[in-house]
């Protein structure tokens, strides 16, 4: 079946603009995660959605970052007033359930460049 998809694959924006990144998880997966990966670095957790529960936003770096998940499926990560340090690859992952032993399946990522 289809894996996790993300769009756009690449995004170039000017400092101060808002951007929206989209994630389509694997059908039937109740858990959805957003991560950020800067050049040459490991992944940094941003936010986690599980079913209809309130999301875990503990990884969001500032209030310019927000995310929503509509209908328990598609998720959008929004970055307002982008800064150059926001440049990174933004990765989305989904898993069947919330337990750690549930494998997280990652999408290809969105490469964001803020000029």
């Amino acid at each position: 079946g289809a894996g996790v998809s993300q769009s756009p694959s690449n995004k170039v924006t000017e400092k101060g603009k808002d951007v929206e990144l989209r994630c389509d998880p694997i059908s039937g997966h109740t858990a959805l995660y957003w991560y950020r990966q800067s050049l040459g670095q490991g992944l940094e957790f941003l936010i986690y959605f599980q079913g209809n529960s309130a999301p875990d936003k503990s990884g969001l770096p500032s209030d310019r970052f927000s995310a929503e998940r509509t209908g328990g499926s598609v998720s959008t990560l929004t970055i307002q007033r982008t800064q150059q340090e926001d440049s990174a690859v933004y990765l989305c992952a989904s898993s069947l359930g919330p337990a750690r032993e549930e494998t997280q399946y990652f999408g290809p990522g969105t490469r964001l460049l803020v000029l």
Partner: protein
Amino acid sequence: LAKTTQPISMDSYEGQEVNITCSHNNIATNDYITWYQQFPSQGPRFIIQGYKTKVTNEVASLFIPADRKSSTLSLPRVSLSDTAVYYCLVGDRYYGNKLVFGAGTILRVKS
């Protein structure tokens, strides 16, 4: 979350067995050990997960000693396509699903 330490990089040749060791001295009772693989321009991909002793799947083996303070990912007969970054993660099985990736180990397989 337990901190992990891995070698920054390793080099190998095609057909060799590669063993990547990860140290996690502060591993907790409920923690599982998971390894991911990441190719350039792709998201990480799950390889293997274990709690203790040895786990084997079609891709790799994971060796975990009795004290669980380290683990070794073993890749049999690597090929050029195994060139990637390998991440070791340790975390609670039931709480905190946020994966915390370290810098990982860059494995370069040469012909």
